[in-house]
């Protein structure tokens, strides 16, 4: 008997018993759905985290000198150690910048959440950045209208502000904000630029911020004088970034007079580092996934085995007929194994469709861009076939061992 005939027989049987077949393949279906959906979401997250999260929040080929790493979880003890570290000061930043041989651009950075007021309207909780002019390039911020601040304005710490898209909407409601004067911490700032819309990250707006010159009056609120939260450094490319990182580390250690045996008492935050938290989460998901999938596949396999045992009992006469007509043991064996495998593969196929559907639903309903991984589809199908075959072996061997006379007389 050829495989095609066996598959044909199996499909006929499944077609005539749609509901029963559907229930029997539910376990495999759920297992494979899990597999596809979780892998798709994790893969999508990976792409998203690398493209969006890391590059938006840190910047391409960019790193920051910080007192302690950002985007990370650490032990209580670790936090206490980090809190005792000195803050980054101007002298250190200047030293790093002056020694740097790799082409790079630099910006000091502090931020504080403050209200912005214009004409009686208040935008609350605006992330006000105090930064140097290169920050717009480092963060790849595009202007909707107006301009960024000039080196002169930055140098003098003038009270000018470039506002995020959402602040423009909120305060000016479509009117031209250019030249208007908004109040920050009681002082008037002249709006010189409006930034283009960036959208959201995990549903959080990326447009609810404003940028003022580092030395403008707000600085007093955002940072202690002489210090900064972060010193941003951007190289032109990946190799440049590696070189700049090494140079920066060296310069900082020299400036802070660290002995060779001493650890760095500062952190160099890269996009890579920012992804660490996510990598931990995805590792946990990817470890838990095989367990989830295998549990549902084992359950699915047992269900299919039971269904096949019932099928063998119900179809004893059929088996007798087939044997009388010349079916050998291996023909009967093949028939039931193939039927079981077909059933499970069908479950896997529906599971793949459901999984992909779920992934697309996640993509359209949440900011996460789920991406279906071809290998997970392949794995889903192979698992379906394998579970079906394994679950089918025992019932099939029982069927193949039936005595034709007894089988024909059953009912």
């Amino acid at each position, binding site marked *: *008997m050829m495989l095609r*005939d066996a598959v044909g027989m199996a499909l006929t049987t499944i077609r005539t018993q749609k509901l029963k077949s559907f229930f029997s393949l539910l376990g495999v279906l759920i297992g494979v759905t899990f597999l596809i959906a979780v892998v798709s979401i994790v893969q999508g997250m990976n792409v998203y985290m690398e493209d969006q999260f890391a590059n938006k929040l840190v910047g391409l080929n960019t790193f920051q000198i910080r007192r302690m790493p950002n985007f990370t979880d650490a032990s209580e003890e670790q936090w206490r150690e980090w809190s005792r570290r000195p803050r980054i000061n101007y002298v250190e930043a200047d030293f790093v910048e002056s020694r740097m041989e790799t082409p790079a651009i630099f910006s000091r950075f502090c931020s504080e959440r403050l209200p912005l007021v214009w004409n009686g309207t208040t935008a609350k909780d605006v992330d006000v950045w105090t930064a140097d002019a290169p920050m717009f390039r480092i963060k790849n911020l595009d202007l909707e209208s107006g301009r960024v601040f000039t080196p002169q304005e930055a140098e003098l710490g003038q009270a000018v502000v470039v506002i995020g898209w959402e602040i423009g909407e909120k305060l000016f409601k479509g009117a031209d904000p250019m030249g208007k004067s908004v109040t920050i911490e009681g002082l008037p700032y002249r709006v010189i630029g409006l930034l283009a819309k960036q959208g959201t990250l995990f549903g959080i707006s990326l447009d609810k911020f404003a940028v003022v010159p580092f030395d403008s009056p707000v600085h007093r609120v955002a940072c202690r004088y002489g210090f900064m939260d972060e010193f941003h450094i951007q190289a032109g490319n990946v190799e440049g970034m590696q070189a700049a990182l090494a140079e920066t580390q060296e310069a900082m250690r020299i400036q802070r007079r660290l002995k060779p045996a001493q650890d760095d008492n500062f952190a160099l935050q890269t996009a890579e580092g920012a992804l660490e938290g996510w990598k931990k989460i995805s590792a946990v998901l990817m470890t838990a996934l095989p367990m989830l999938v295998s549990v549902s596949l084992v359950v699915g396999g047992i269900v299919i085995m039971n269904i096949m045992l019932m099928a063998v009992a119900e179809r004893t*006469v059929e088996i007798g007929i*087939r*044997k*009388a*007509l*010349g079916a050998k043991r*291996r023909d009967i064996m093949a028939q039931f194994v193939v039927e079981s495998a077909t059933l499970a593969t069908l479950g896997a196929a529906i599971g793949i469709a459901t999984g992909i559907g779920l992934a697309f639903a996640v993509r359209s309903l949440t900011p996460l861009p789920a991406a279906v991984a071809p290998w997970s589809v392949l794995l889903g199908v192979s698992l379906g076939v394998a579970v079906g075959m394994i679950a089918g072996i025992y019932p099939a061997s029982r069927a193949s061992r039936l005595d034709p006379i007894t089988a*024909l007389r059953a009912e």
Partner: protein
Amino acid sequence: MSDLVIQIRDLVRTYEMGVETVHALRGVSLEIRRNEYVAIMGPSGSGKSTLMNLIGCLDTPSSGEYWLNGQEVSRMPDDALARVRNREIGFVFQTFNLLPRASALANVELPLVYAGTGARQRRERAEAALTRVGLGNRMDHRPNELSGGQRQRVAIARALVNEPAILLADEPTGNLDSTTSEEIMRVFQTLHDQGQTIIMVTHEADIAAHAGRVVVLRDGRIASDTRQREAAA
């Protein structure tokens, strides 16, 4: 010798039923020539079902010899017997034993599936067999869409499709009314006229009367073996 399809010598079949030994066949010898039409009769418990199972290669004897179409089949292992059933024997059962979910055509194709015949040839031969029993226009019907007589004719087409050495019918009219029974007997007669060897187990004397030879079993032995004049078609 080549004219003998079946050669049975001292066939004995005993069953162990717990501590008791049941002697179903106590030494049966029988020879059947090509194109014979034989009815096997006997009351229940006479061993006629056992003999039929042995002739049909569904069972093997406790002792004795059984030559079918020149092969000694009484000592064959399971899979070899399956092959013999597939090539040499066409079964027709009292309860038709068609696969309920398959069309008439698919039912008739089944022996060819196990013979490993290719799909196209399978279809052609199954269609020819169905046409031969007068069901050329019912090929796509399922058994439950056919009358009893039509079902039995599908079963006959299935039995014939591999051109077996013997057509082995077990109470072929047991589930049919008398008109339909006559119809099936006419099909058998036609096949016999075309040269088919037919062995039919029955307990109905008027059905047995269609056969050219009647073997009567009693208590596991042949009680009588009579050749009668060919029944009128």
